[in-house]
């Protein structure tokens, strides 16, 4: 973590208002190459709003976003996707009536080889099904059939579908908004494992979570959001969980932390 | 500006009424009057016609020409208009009772039916009639008058002119509502032919319905053996008579009704003199082939008198 690795994604002074509510109030953000950056904060601190700006789901009222140093202006999640950014949204972006395999490949369907696929653009359902099964097995989720509609899954199972999708297709950055919130112990650990694996492939991961043990287990750096701003970025190896929580809740100021705690 | 005259038709889209409107506008231009037009939304929309009456009075109309959708339900509104000094003239079909309006310039739909009934009987020449009727829509007085008149003219068991029900003697093997629409009439005729392939006489409520029925008969290869009669006498219909699609039709005169109405309205505005009474604008039987004992005019005459694009 020394020698300042390259900055992959950066945001400066983001402001986002919803009517009278200011969700982001000049938030900064920095994601470095190959790291797992945890974003933590109280409910309503603006974490989801922040990553929605980063992934093109909403457009900030003010502020700048840079990808690999170049300013970007995502107009929609499509733009972000084209730049290789994959996101798991907190409110589970799945289409309930469609099957698991369809959801996994939604917007990125595989076509049959040869004439059928090239000119008639026929889907390769079999291949998608097979890949779905292997992806989901990686997460060790016991789902019987990939042709089951997502609406028949339990809350945690649905979450797994969204996570598997992001992990499978990201090229540049993976953003996950509370991916383990609904997961059981086993599945939660699988997702943490998956996050590590994605990082090890070289992709930086943004992980939003309220689960401090999880955060301290995987994060390389921790971004603490507070009242729509970035309160501090800390190094989990040099700060205690209780100090982190204290900064998060405002009980302690970031300036009171020892030099080493910052990252 | 000249006097304002309101014209209220049953619908906007029936060519008969469109023609009526054109006739009124042409006459108004000649006499320096203004015609404002309105209509119900569908055939039978009485409430829409009442609203139109009110709005026209508000717009300053002193004469209202109306083709009542509902001969009886419209009367209270007419009474109210008359109470405000407005002259109301019924066009095309009378109110019930006819004295509820100041004057009626109308055509006798029952008689129109009788004429084609008489002609059909002659045309069938003693064959036993097997009849299909393509009627208007449930409960429509014009539909009932033409239908019952046709049966009476043929000499079959029927109902009188005031009756709103459709008579159904044994000779009528299939009755269907065409809504005066070619496509619906075609479907209905196809189904009737399925039911009874021996149909040899088809009565249709108007000429589009006749064209639809003809299409069905032609598809079944029966167009030569079947007599099709109709009512209206629009130019397209007369052309169909000439082409052998329709055997005979009863011609009516919407332009005449309208221009008479406008003239009466201008006169009322000038002199305060109202017209009154019932004026029958007449009906003429048009057929390509004259039948002995039936008084009919040929296609050429029909074309000279017809309304619409010649």
């Amino acid at each position: 973590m020394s020698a300042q690795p390259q900055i992959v994604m950066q945001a400066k002074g983001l402001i986002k208002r919803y009517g009278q509510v200011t969700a982001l109030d000049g938030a900064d953000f920095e994601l470095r190459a190959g790291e797992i950056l945890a974003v933590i904060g109280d409910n309503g601190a603006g974490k989801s709003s922040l990553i929605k700006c980063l992934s093109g789901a909403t457009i900030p009222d003010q502020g700048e976003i840079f990808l690999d140093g170049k300013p970007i202006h995502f107009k929609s999640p499509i733009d972000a996707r084209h730049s290789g950014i994959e996101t798991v949204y907190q409110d589970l972006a799945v289409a309930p009536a469609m099957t698991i395999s369809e959801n996994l490949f939604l917007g990125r369907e595989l076509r049959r080889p040869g004439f059928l696929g090239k000119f008639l653009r026929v889907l390769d359902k079999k291949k998608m099904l097979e890949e779905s099964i292997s992806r989901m097995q990686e997460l060790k989720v016991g789902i019987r059939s990939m042709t089951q509609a997502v609406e028949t899954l339990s809350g945690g199972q649905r979450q797994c579908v969204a996570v598997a999708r992001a992990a499978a297709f990201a090229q540049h950055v993976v953003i996950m908004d509370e991916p383990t919130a609904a997961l059981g112990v086993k599945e939660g650990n699988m997702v943490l494992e998956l996050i590590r694996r994605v990082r090890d492939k070289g992709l930086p991961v943004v992980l939003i979570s309220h689960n401090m043990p999880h955060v301290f287990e995987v994060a390389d750096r921790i971004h603490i959001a507070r009242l729509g701003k970035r309160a501090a970025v800390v190094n989990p190896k040099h700060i205690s969980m209780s100090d982190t929580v204290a900064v998060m809740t405002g009980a302690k100021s970031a300036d009171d932390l020892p030099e080493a705690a910052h990252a | 500006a000249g006097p304002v005259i309101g014209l209220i038709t049953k619908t906007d889209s029936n060519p008969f009424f469109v023609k009526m409107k054109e006739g009124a506008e042409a006459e108004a231009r000649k006499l320096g009057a203004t015609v404002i037009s309105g209509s119900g939304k569908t055939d039978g929309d009485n409430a829409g016609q009442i609203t139109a009456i009110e709005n026209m009075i508000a717009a300053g109309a002193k004469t209202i020409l109306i083709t009542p959708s509902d001969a009886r339900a419209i009367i209270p509104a007419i009474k109210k208009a008359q109470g405000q000094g407005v002259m109301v003239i019924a066009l095309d079909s009378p109110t019930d009772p006819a004295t509820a309006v100041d004057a009626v310039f109308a055509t006798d739909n029952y008689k129109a039916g009788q004429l084609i009934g008489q002609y059909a009987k002659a045309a069938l020449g003693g064959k036993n009639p097997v009849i299909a009727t393509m009627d208007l829509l449930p409960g429509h007085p014009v539909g009932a008058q033409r239908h019952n008149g046709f049966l009476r003219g043929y000499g079959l068991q029927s109902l009188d002119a005031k009756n709103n029900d459709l008579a159904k003697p044994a000779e009528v093997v299939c009755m269907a509502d065409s809504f005066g629409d070619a496509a619906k009439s075609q479907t209905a005729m196809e189904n009737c032919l399925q039911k009874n392939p021996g149909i040899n006489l088809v009565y249709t409520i108007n000429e589009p319905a006749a064209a639809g029925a003809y299409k069905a008969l032609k598809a079944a290869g029966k167009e030569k053996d079947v007599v099709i009669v109709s009512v209206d006498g629009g130019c397209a219909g007369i052309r169909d008579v000439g082409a052998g699609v329709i055997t005979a039709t009863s011609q009516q005169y919407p332009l005449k009704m309208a221009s008479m109405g406008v003239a009466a309205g201008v006169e009322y505005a000038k002199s305060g003199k109202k017209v009154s009474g019932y004026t029958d604008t007449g009906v003429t039987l048009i057929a390509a082939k004259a039948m002995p004992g039936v008084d009919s005019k040929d296609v050429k005459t029909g074309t000279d008198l017809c309304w619409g694009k010649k």
Partner: protein
Amino acid sequence: MNTHSFKLPPLATLGPFIALLLACFFFATQSDRFLSAQNFSLILQQVMVVGVIAIGQTLIILTAGIDLSCGMVMALGGIVMTKFAADFGLPAPLAVACGIAVTTLFGLLNGLLVTRIKLPPFIVTLGTLNIAFAITQLYSQSRTVTDIPDSMTFLGNTLRFGNTSIAYGVALMLGLYLVTWAWLRETASGRHIYAVGNSPEATRLTGIPTDRVLLGVYVLAGLLYGIASLLSVARTGAGDPNAGQTENLDAITAVVLGGTSLFGGRGVVLGTLVGALIVGVFRNGLTLMGVSSIYQILVTGILVILAVATDQMSRKGVR
């Protein structure tokens, strides 16, 4: 689709209201006959029937349903009350009660099919639309009923204030709007209608008997259609078997112009009144301008879209 997310309730009716004012302003510049108390009294009378139907329609649309049968049911009610009075010589109040009972029964039928068999309201009311129409035609033998007692058309009479006049029926309609508005706003049962339309599952889980709420709404709508029958009889002075054929689309137009979401759970019933008035003002104003009726249809089509678009824009501006 869910573009209503951040709608502020008090502002929701503002859009349609502005559209109404703009329309009035426009017509006032076009015709000197438009801006008179008497003309407005006329417009109110013209919208009173569809206005009352639209209250029922609003309730149903708030529950994320839709009612296509409303106009036909209204026509049946009118036929029943007039025929009962004319043929059996029932006293007017009793005949009216019978007519309203029939429309309420139709509401009950709609409600039972929607809640018990869980059929989509669109298809249920498409069915009952045909059934009500057929019964109306059969029972009336397609004949208009005219010889009805005066007391039955009482609501069509007007009360004069100086040179203004207001029909009793209009007063009744305005009263019904106010009562419904207060009920929806200020009572638990009213709020439950919003909750059912907004999130039926969540509402069921909080222990509200959603099926009973739905059933109640359909029955109440039937009752309102019965009142509309009476108003229609009073206005036209006759029981008309061909009434009500376009009232369903008219009522839905009024509801939507009034800012109520077709997805349920969002809307204000007073907006529906404004929506009904917009339609009435256009019809009246265009006639006063001497626009022929086929152009009126064209203009109405364009304006329906414009009005809703303005409303939508004004809401976006507010965010």
